[in-house]
C-alpha cells in the first residue's frame, strides 16, 4: 500500500501551487482556476484520510463529493460574475475591479 505521506505531499504541493496562483495572478479566471486547485488538494486529503483511518466509513468520501459539488457551483457563480464584469467594464483583471473601494 502506498504510504499516506505520498498523498499528503501531493496534496500539499497542489495546495501551494493553487495558493501561489491566487496570490500572484491578476486575471480573475486564473485565480478561479487556482482556487479549484486548492480545493482539489483538500479533496485528495479527505479521500486519503478516509481510506487510511477507517475504510469502513464513508465520511471523508462523502465530504469529497460535497466539495466537488460546491466547487462546481462556485465556479459557475464566479464565472458568471467575471462575465458580467467583463461585459460591463471590459476587464478581467481583479485589480481594476475597485468600484466598492473607498
Amino acid at each position, binding site marked *: 500500500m502506498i504510504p499516506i505521506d505520498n498523498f499528503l505531499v501531493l496534496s500539499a504541493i497542489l495546495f501551494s501551487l493553487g*495558493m501561489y496562483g491566487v*496570490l500572484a495572478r*491578476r486575471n480573475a479566471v486564473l485565480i478561479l482556476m487556482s482556487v479549484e486547485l486548492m480545493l482539489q488538494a483538500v479533496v485528495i486529503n479527505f479521500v486519503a484520510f478516509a481510506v487510511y483511518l477507517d475504510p469502513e466509513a464513508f465520511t471523508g468520501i462523502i465530504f469529497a463529493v460535497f466539495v466537488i459539488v460546491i466547487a462546481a457551483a462556485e465556479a459557475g457563480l464566479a464565472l458568471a460574475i467575471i462575465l458580467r464584469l467583463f461585459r460591463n467594464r471590459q476587464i478581467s483583471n481583479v*485589480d481594476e*475591479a*475597485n468600484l466598492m473601494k*473607498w
Partner: protein
Amino acid sequence: MGMEQAWLIPAIPAAAFAILLIFGPYLPRRGDWLAIAAIGASFVLVFPVLADLLDRADGTTYVAGEKAWEWISFDLGSVGETFEIEIGFYVDPITIVMLAVVTLVALMVQVYSIAYMKGDSRYGWYFTVMSLFAASMLTLVLANNLLLLYAGWEAVGFCSFLLIGFWWEKRSAAEAAKKAFITTRVGDVGLLIGIIMLWHEGPNTFNIQEIIHFAEGGGYGDTYLTAAVLFLFMGALGKSGQFPLHVWLPDAMEGPTPVSALIHAATMVVAGVYLVARMLPLFEVADPIALNVVLIVGLITVMLSATMGLAATDIKRVIAYSTLNSLGLMFVALGSSAVAAAMLYLFVHGFFKALLFLGAGSVIHATEEQDMNRLGGLAAKMPITAATFAIGTLAMIGLVPLSGFWAKDEVLVFAEEEQHVIVYLVLLSSLAITGLYMARLFVRTFLFAPREQATYDHAHEGGALITVPLLILGLLAAVGGFVVFDEVGEALGFPGGFAQFVFLHEAHQFDFQLDTAITSTVLAGGGAVVGWVLWQGKAELAARIRDAFSPISTLLANRYYVDEVYQFAIDRVVLVLGGIIAWFDRVVINDRGVNGSAYIAYFTGLEARLLQTGRIPNYALAIVVGILILAIVMLVTQV
C-alpha cells in the same frame, strides 16, 4: 360671623376674579359691578371680624383667631415627623388694621376706576385683575404661615406686573412692568431663602406664630436668626421699594393712575412694612444688627426719595417719591421697634396717599397731562380736586391736625428717644424737604396762572364717581390721625386705644412731646412756605437756584444715576455673562466637546480605511500570512 370666617374676606374677591376671568366678557358692563360688590363685601366683613376680636378680648389682651386647612401633608417616614403646609388665616390687631386699609382703599379706587377707565378697550380685564389683586393682598395679610404669605406676596407682584403693564402697547409700560416684577423678584430670592432658613432650624412648621414663639424661646442660633431675618428683609426691600431696590417704583407710574393709588401707595408696597412688622419679634431676638439694617435702609430711602422728589416734574412721580419717603419713615419706625407708630403711619398713609394719587388721576383725567410744567391754576376749574389734594398734601407734609402729623410725630419721638441723634436730625431735615417738594407739587399744579392755556381750558371737574371717593378719602386723611388719642380709640370701641390695639407686646401709649411736635411742624411748615415762595408764579427763584447748583440738580433729576448703574450692570455684566456662557456652551462644550469627540471617531475612520486597499491579492495575502502566523504560533506553543 367671627374671626374663623375671616378667610371669606380674600375668598370673595378671589371668586369674583374667577367668575370675571371666565364669564367677564359676557356680563353686563363687563362685570365691573361684580368686582366692586366683591371688594365692598370684603370691606363690610372686616367689621364683624373686628367686633369678634374685640368681643373676645380680655381687657387689652387680644386673643387671635386662627383657621387653617391642610394643603400639603406627608409623613417623613425615617424621622417620624410630618411635613405640613397649611392654608391658614390668622387674625390679630395688625391684620385688622391692614384689612381695613386695603379693603377701604381698594373699594374707593375701584369705584373711582369706573369713571377713570371708562371706554378703555380692556375695561373688563382691568376689574378682573383688580379683584385678583385685592384677593392676593388680603391673603398676604391674613396668612398664618410664611408660605401662604409668600404666595400672596408673589401674586401681588404678578398683579402689579399686569396692572403696571396694563397699557402694554406702550413700550415704556411693558418695560416698567417687567422692571417692577424682576426687581421685586430679586428681593423675593432673599425672602424665600429666609423662609426656608426659618423652617430648617425651626419647629418644622411655617406657622408664623409658632416660629416667633420658637425664636423667643431661643430656638435659633443668634447668627443664624440674624441671617434669616436679613434675608426676609431683602424681600421687604424689594416689595416696599427701599434703597437699593427702589428703582421700580417711580417707573411703575406707567400704569393707570387708580392702579398707582392702589398698588403703589396704599397696599402692595406696604406689604414689606407689614412683613417686617409681623416678624418684628424675630428682628428683636436677633442680633441688633438686623434692626439697625432696617433703620439705616429706611433712613437712606427717606433722604434719597425726598431729594429726588424735588427734581421730578411728573406729578405722579413726585407722589411716588413721597411714597418712598413715607415707606422709609415706616422702616425707620420699625427699626426702632415702634410697631404701633409704623402701623399708624401705614394706616393714615393709605388714606392720604390714595387721596393724592386719585387727585392726580383726576387732574390727568381732566387734562390728559401729567407734567406739572404744563399745568397750573387748576384750582379754579377743579375746586373739589384741589381742596382734597390740598388736604392730602398737608397730611403728607405733616401739619396739625391732619392725620400725617400724628403718625409722623410718633416716629420722630421714637427716633429721638431710642436712636442716635443723627437719625433724628436726618428725619427732621427730610421733613423740611418733604414740605418743599409737596408744596411745589401743589403750587405748580393748582395755583397761579396756567402754563398752557389749551390744557387749562380743557380741564373740568370729574363726575361723582371721581369726586365722592376723593371726598371720603379726604375726610379720612384729615381726621384719621385722631385715633392716636386713647379717648378716640376707646370711643371707637378699642379698649385702651389704638396703640394698645396694635402693639404686640406690652401696654404702650402714644407719646406726644410738645418740643418734637413744634420742631417738626416748624420745619415741615417752613419747608412748605419756602416751597410756595420758590415756585410761585413763574418759579423764577427756583430756576435760579437750580441753575446755581446745577451739578446737584442734574444728579437729582437723574435719580442719583441708580437706574443707570443697574442698567449698566444688567447690560454689561448679566447679559455679557449670559452671552459668555451661551458662547461657551456652543463653542467649547458643543463644538469642542461634542463635535470634537465625533471628529475623533471620524478621523480614526478616515485613517483606518486606508487598510482596505480593495485589491483581492492583498486580502488573499493577508489571509495566508495570517494562517501561517497562526500555524507557527501553534507549533511553537505545542512543542
